[in-house]
């Protein structure tokens, strides 16, 4: 092999290795949970979500997570939600986790919902004891913040593998809010519910598809 050919071979090897790394980075970047559309159509749609204490499946079986129900009734592991703009969104959240308590009790007050209230297992509330909160559903840019009541500790038939069924112990939280102009809004949970992370706020709490997501108003 001549020196030039050898240099070329090494250069090609380097290029191949670099291309592999580039592919590795780009393939990581483009991973995003699927978009789940709300049921119904403008001006009034319905979203159904559930929170599970532990996902139970790969890749993170012990992570807490949100799931969304697509219009065909199938539970999807996603937090990217699509709703129409300038519409009323009725949300039902099936909450399977036990109470962790809020870091900032302020979020115990529902805000940004129609009437400023939420309905927990049939009861209308305008505040939830922060210590009973298990998660929150908050879209700060729309002013929406809703605490989700946790199930009692030691309840029978707890859920540990997503998706959870209606037969398992849960609380049902319903509320409505109004979307404004089109846009991509983040939403998140304010409860430090990530097990094993300092301050309870790592891992699932900082991962889109788990306890954070986008609400796409279109």
């Amino acid at each position: 092999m001549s020196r030039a050919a050898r240099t070329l071979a090494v250069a090609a090897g380097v290029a191949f290795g670099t291309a592999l790394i580039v592919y590795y980075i780009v393939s990581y970047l483009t991973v995003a949970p699927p978009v789940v559309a709300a049921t119904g159509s403008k001006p009034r749609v319905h979203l159904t979500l559930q929170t599970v204490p532990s996902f139970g499946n790969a890749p993170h079986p012990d992570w807490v997570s949100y799931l969304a129900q697509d219009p065909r009734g199938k539970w999807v592991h996603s937090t990217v939600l699509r709703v129409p703009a300038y519409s009323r969104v009725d949300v039902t959240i099936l909450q399977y986790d036990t109470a962790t308590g809020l870091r900032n009790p302020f979020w115990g007050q529902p805000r940004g919902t129609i009437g400023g209230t939420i309905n927990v297992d049939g009861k209308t509330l305008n505040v939830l004891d922060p210590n009973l909160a298990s998660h929150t559903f908050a879209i700060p840019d729309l002013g929406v913040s809703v605490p989700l009541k946790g199930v009692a500790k030691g309840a029978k038939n707890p859920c540990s593998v997503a998706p959870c069924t209606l037969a398992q112990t849960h609380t049902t939280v319903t509320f409505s809010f109004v979307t404004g102009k089109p846009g991509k809004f983040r939403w998140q949970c304010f409860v430090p519910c990530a097990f094993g992370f300092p301050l309870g706020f790592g891992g699932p709490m900082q991962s889109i598809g788990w306890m954070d997501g986008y609400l796409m108003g279109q």
Partner: protein
Amino acid sequence: MSATPIAAQPPVWRRLIGFNMLTGLVLGIGGWFLGAWIGGQMAVGHPYLQGTDQNDVGIYMGYLFGVIGFLVGLGFANYPIGRLLGRPPTLRQHETGSWTRYFRLCTDHKVVGIQYLFGVGIFFFIGGLNAMLMRTELLRPVEQAWPASQYLTLVSLHGTMMIMMTSAFILGPFGNYFVPIMIGARRMAFPRIEALTFWLVPAAGLILLSAIAFGGIATGWTGYAPLADEGRAGMDAYVMSFILIAISLTLVGLNLMATILTMRAPGMSWTRLPIFVWSVLATSILQALAAPVLVAAMAMVLMDRAANTSFFLASAGGSQYLYENLFWFFGHPEVYILALPGFGIVLELLPVFARKPLWGYRLAVAGMLGVTLLSFMVWQHHLFVSGMNAGLRPFYMLTTELISIPTGFIFLIAIGTLWRARIRFTVPMLFALAFFFNFLIGGLSGVFLSDVPSDVTTHGSYFVMAHFHYTIVGGLVFAFFGAVYYWLPKMLGFELNETLGKIHFWLFFVFFNLTFFPLFAAGFLDMPRRVSTYAPSLQTLNIFVSASAYVIGLSMLIFIANLVWSLVFVRQPAAENPWASRGLEWQVPTPVPVSNFDRVPVITSGPYEYGVPNAPPVADFAPGALPAAGS
């Protein structure tokens, strides 16, 4: 060097077996699994670790064993074990032989220099690509291309990788390659440590890249602590790779400092030392003293994450300020670890292409040493609005502004050297001159940041980001390319295409300024750093910046094309001294012999005596007779 005739070549697959990079990678991966398993056993009984996919102990053990495996596979264990078994000390290993020495432990400082050149070059390329991907996201004011978490990982990877790689950017390739030749030494003081410093860099780079597989890094390159504590397992990769890089930096400093202090050839007095060597010496001091503090800071993060300590968790008795102090106690000298070699390079190039002696040599040295000293006293200017020691802010304002005095010397030296010079605008000279333009803007924008009332607005904004890109990219990276075009003919033995070089320069220079100057405005107009969403009114500006950034990327591709074209296809052998430089490194043959000089030369004259009547040659290469008069 060795005249041993090579026996019949064994088949290729047999030649792959042995202590080389391939073995290192295999043992490294094996070590990873072994360490992760051991870590899994260690986590038993700790519910927050055991059985979770976030067993930090396992990950750290995996990295530790992986690195050990990698180094053992490269052959770094042979010598220490041999020493324990009583083998005599040797200084050199694998210095001859085929091109495969570039892929194994080699104690020849010239091989290490070239390893560094291509090693950091690859990571520079990846880091730059991350920047392109970031700019793609910033085309829109809300997350569009990549989700926020991936964008943050991108930011952190770009920042961390660039800081790590640029720390080794000049001392690695050019410091290792040229410092011994420039001071008339036949080798480095610690050749095996030198090889180690290089091989830690790819290990650190690969570990850093593995962060992606563990959920990414969400902290940026500074890794501020409570956030680093709660980060996903990708943070472990950040911590581990920074520890390795900091160890590498410390050892580079140790090695180069010892070399310069002890191995100067006879006659190489302190006033004849090339200015680049002075800058390397100053940088080595910073590296040997500042980088250990980073190791300590990272060790604390490591313990916070794996051993559940609370160095940085305020609620458990620690303080986030501790991290900021330790990090910036390293971090600000680090800024000058990046800047000083750049000063050295441009001041080394100016006399050659201005054909004049370096004007005010002693002032240049004083400037570099002044920067070295002051850089340990300014770190809290990164923390002007942190609420820490607010009463000390005038002091740090003063020291920060004082540092512009020695930095200003560098400009004065350039002004003096260019005075009535005979400037030749070769490609290296263009890069060196562009350095001054960029560093001028970078330095003056730093004055805004040093003034507290002004810093309140600009702190943490794109203004800061533009400022340090002007100093690091505009300064260091331009100096790096100047050095590449200047020294590559000596290092690789081939000429680079000048036309492509000029195209590379002009595209890079123009679009570098078009990219980063508008970002000062973005910072002034309230755009914080590290955001994937910004005010819609700034979209036009950001699109413009992104478009310019892509052209910078293109200019880098032109450089790579130039490299491949010149090295593979044209292969025009370079002259031994194409720039007619008086530098000692240009007086040795190309390719440089393994031992650089047949005998240690006797230095008879300074390296910048251009135009000096009857200036003696720079060195006597066959000493035996007495050195020439006037030494």
